């Protein structure tokens, strides 16, 4: 329990480092968590006082984000990525082996406080899994050998900073580059062109390019910037780059930030000039903590080069800077208004719309929120013009899209394609020809079967924020759906009834069917809840949470029916299983202590 004067000094230092700014509460709690391995109650009081906010706010934020805890986690806090593609690479077996060697139970800190192991949502290392995190830093390619080394390092108390570098190696794995990944951008060149051309005509070029948001919804980028630029009565405008990349199976923003950071920041700066903003933020998902320092280094380099700060490329009228804010494990914070709430130091709960962020965003000011890839593309469009970009793609989907391909294929990784490319082509390129089905757009997207592989990439057919998962004949459709459904139940923010309760009901209902306890009525019920959750939820999370179920029920009904019992109704619980506690308490396990269930 931190209560010593030196602990209190540590806390005061953390607060001071963040200028006692309450909007930085998530950042402050990240530092507290990493120092004390939890957020102790006494610290909550302290923070509330020093930041002049309610204690309840500190507690509420602590209890919202997965990476914060009120009970101490281990000095080595290990999280194993629990996405379906990690499973397919053996993550569950690896985690079991790790727990066995360390003598820990998942979710419980070892008695000596040294180590804890738990599972977490996709960490974005899908093509180099099984993946995990140790004290927030990404681990890739976990093998049994590595697990044994890790166990030694943990038991020897070797600081993570001294662990072998290769444990933390994150590769780009770019297999196909096109317009965005294949065009070299000299830092500053897009900004120079923009000023030569003029801000209005730069916005015109973005409009001509036909660029639509790459984060999922596909809203016209030029339109968004224009709305924000024209919003009246504001003190300030903001640019926010959405690097939350929480959709399982998506990892292309990670690669852009790792190897194309100048391009992304240049795109944000172009946006800042066009809309008249002086401050920009990059909201980086907590899982990408390892990128924080390198990104700050790029920002520093840009300041030195006169590409950020005041007097940018010698223009006294243009001032713009970028700050990085880091998340703490919450998929919902990728939703733009939840992201803004998180940036303001609150729980990541999506706001009511209207009003939209373009008029009432960060600190209630007009704000553009765009995906990482959108900014990377915008920088190049500012340099090369709209026609250069719109020459690729289809009528409704201009340009190219970066895919993160994972799952059953020979060459998983990053592939950039013009919109309009068929699934068959993509599968041929990455060596995924044995595919039985594809999950396009992550769990919130759709599952398609082999007879649909002539369909094309694009907003008019198969849209995706980047996630592209391949499944071959060995895979069980229901296991895939179950993984996704558990994901949504875990990530629902809990604001609205249909999503909060409905995602849990879907999870229970699917578990029941998969365990062989489901009847025909259960299938109808599954569909009924799915439709309701989709139709009435507050935000995109709830509205898409039933997609895995609905899209597979439509295409693979027999997979569900195979699991059903012959009867039409089956109780929601296992009668004999329910007696287990009583048996344990009474120390009995004889025949009379068991109940047979009629089936």
């Amino acid at each position, binding site marked *: 329990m931190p209560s010593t004067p030196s602990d209190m000094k540590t806390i005061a230092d953390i607060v001071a480092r963040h200028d006692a700014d309450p909007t930085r509460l998530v950042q402050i709690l990240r530092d507290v968590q990493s120092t004390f391995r939890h957020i102790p*109650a006494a610290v909550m*009081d302290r923070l509330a006082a020093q930041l002049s906010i*309610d*204690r*309840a*706010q500190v*507690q*509420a934020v602590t*209890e*919202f*984000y997965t990476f914060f805890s009120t009970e101490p986690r281990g000095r080595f806090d290990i999280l194993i990525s629990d996405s379906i593609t990690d499973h397919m690479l053996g993550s569950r077996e690896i985690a079991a082996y790790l727990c066995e060697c360390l003598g820990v139970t998942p979710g419980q800190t070892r008695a000596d406080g040294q180590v804890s192991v738990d599972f977490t949502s996709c960490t974005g290392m899908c093509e180099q899994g099984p993946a995990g995190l140790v004290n927030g830093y990404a681990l890739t390619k976990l093998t049994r050998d590595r697990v044994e080394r890790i166990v030694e390092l943990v038991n020897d108390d070797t600081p993570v900073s001294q662990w072998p570098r290769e444990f933390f190696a994150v590769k780009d794995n770019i297999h196909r580059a096109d317009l965005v990944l294949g065009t070299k951008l000299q830092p500053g060149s897009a900004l120079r062109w923009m000023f030569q051309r003029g801000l209005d005509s730069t916005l015109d070029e973005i409009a001509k390019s036909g660029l639509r948001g790459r984060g999922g919804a596909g809203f016209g980028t030029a339109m968004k910037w224009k709305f924000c630029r024209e919003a009246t009565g504001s003190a300030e405008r903001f640019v926010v780059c959405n690097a939350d990349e929480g959709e399982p199976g998506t990892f292309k923003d990670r690669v852009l930030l790792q190897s194309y950071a100048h391009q992304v920041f240049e795109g944000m700066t172009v946006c800042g000039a066009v809309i008249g903003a002086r401050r920009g933020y990059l909201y980086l998902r907590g899982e990408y903590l390892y990128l924080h320092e390198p990104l700050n280094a790029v920002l520093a380099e840009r300041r030195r080069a006169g590409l950020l700060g005041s007097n940018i490329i010698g223009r006294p009228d243009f001032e713009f800077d970028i700050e990085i804010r880091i998340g703490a494990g*919450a998929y919902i914070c990728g939703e733009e208004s939840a992201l803004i709430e998180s940036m303001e130091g609150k*729980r990541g709960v999506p706001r*009511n719309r*209207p009003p939209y962020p373009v008029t009432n965003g960060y600190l209630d000011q007009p704000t553009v929120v765009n995906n990482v890839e959108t900014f990377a593309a915008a920088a190049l469009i500012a340099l090369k013009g709209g026609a250069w970009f719109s020459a690729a793609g289809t009528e409704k989907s201009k340009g190219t899209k970066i895919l993160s391909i994972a799952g059953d294929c020979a060459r998983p990784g990053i592939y950039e394609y013009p919109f309009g490319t068929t699934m068959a082509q993509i599968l041929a390129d990455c060596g995924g020809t044995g595919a039985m089905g594809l999950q396009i757009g992550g769990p919130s997207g759709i599952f398609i079967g082999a007879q649909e592989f002539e369909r094309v990439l694009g907003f008019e057919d198969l849209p995706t924020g980047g996630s592209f998962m391949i499944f071959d004949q060995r895979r069980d459709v229901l296991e895939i759906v179950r993984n996704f459904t558990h994901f949504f*139940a*875990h*990530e*629902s*923010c*809990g*604001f*609205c*009834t*249909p999503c*909060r*309760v*409905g*995602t*849990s*009901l879907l999870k*229970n209902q699917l578990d029941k069917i998969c365990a062989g306890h489901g009847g025909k009525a259960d299938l109808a019920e599954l569909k*009924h*809840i799915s439709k*309701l959750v989709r*139709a*009435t*939820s*507050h935000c995109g999370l709830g509205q898409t949470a039933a997609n895995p179920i609905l899209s597979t029920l439509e295409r693979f009904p027999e997979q569900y029916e195979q699991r059903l019992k012959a009867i039409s109704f089956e109780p*929601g*619980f296992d009668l004999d299983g329910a007696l287990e506690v009583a048996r344990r308490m009474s120390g009995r396990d004889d025949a009379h202590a068991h109940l047979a269930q009629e089936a």
Partner: protein
Amino acid sequence: MTEHMLTIDGQRIPFTEGQTIIEAATAAGVYIPHLCHNPEFKPHGSCKLCTVKVNGRNCSACTFPAADGQEVLNNTQELNETRRTITQMLFIEGNHFCPSCEKSGNCQLQAVGYYLNMLDAHFPFFYPSREVDASHQEVMLDRDRCILCELCVRASRDVDGKNVFALSGRGINSHLIVNSTTGKLKDTDISVDDKAVHVCPVGAILIKRKGFEVPIGERIYDGQDIGQVSLEHEMPIVEEAEHGR
């Protein structure tokens, strides 16, 4: 000045600039079922009971702005079935033992259940383990019955200026917390006259030693349905706000 107009189930409803759909409906005497909405407070939009179809799309009537020419569907079989399911969800995620609850008969959750012809809970109960806070001399908080509507949060913040309550946690683990070091009501400055103590639509916030003052059978929703009661109570509030606009 031309009058603004939308339709609800085919009926023409006038509205003033800035009103939400539910405000326009209430002013015109049309009941839209709701729980987290209370016209005295800032619209919230979390329970989703007020879901209506606006030009074919589902919207929350309590937050969605009224606009000219909107065709709103409200009292349809489909929407009422949806609302019934949502009400069942609210029942099973908490612990509601109505026969032993002081709020029974005055409870909006129960009343909405009657109104929507809800005959059973339909889903398996979650039986969550939730804390009761009986620490305060006069005010009692039974989280078993909390439906997370945040009316007490809004009332305490916006009317009482005290910030006694907040929602914490995430997803199905969301829960109401009390803003004090101990997390107990006794260590807050809440008082029995606070607005926050009187807005809870269910039996989660109760005033102590007031149990069963009005006998069962003579309570608010024993004789009237919630549609009538709601309109009688809320119409004047909406009208006053309209004149203030």
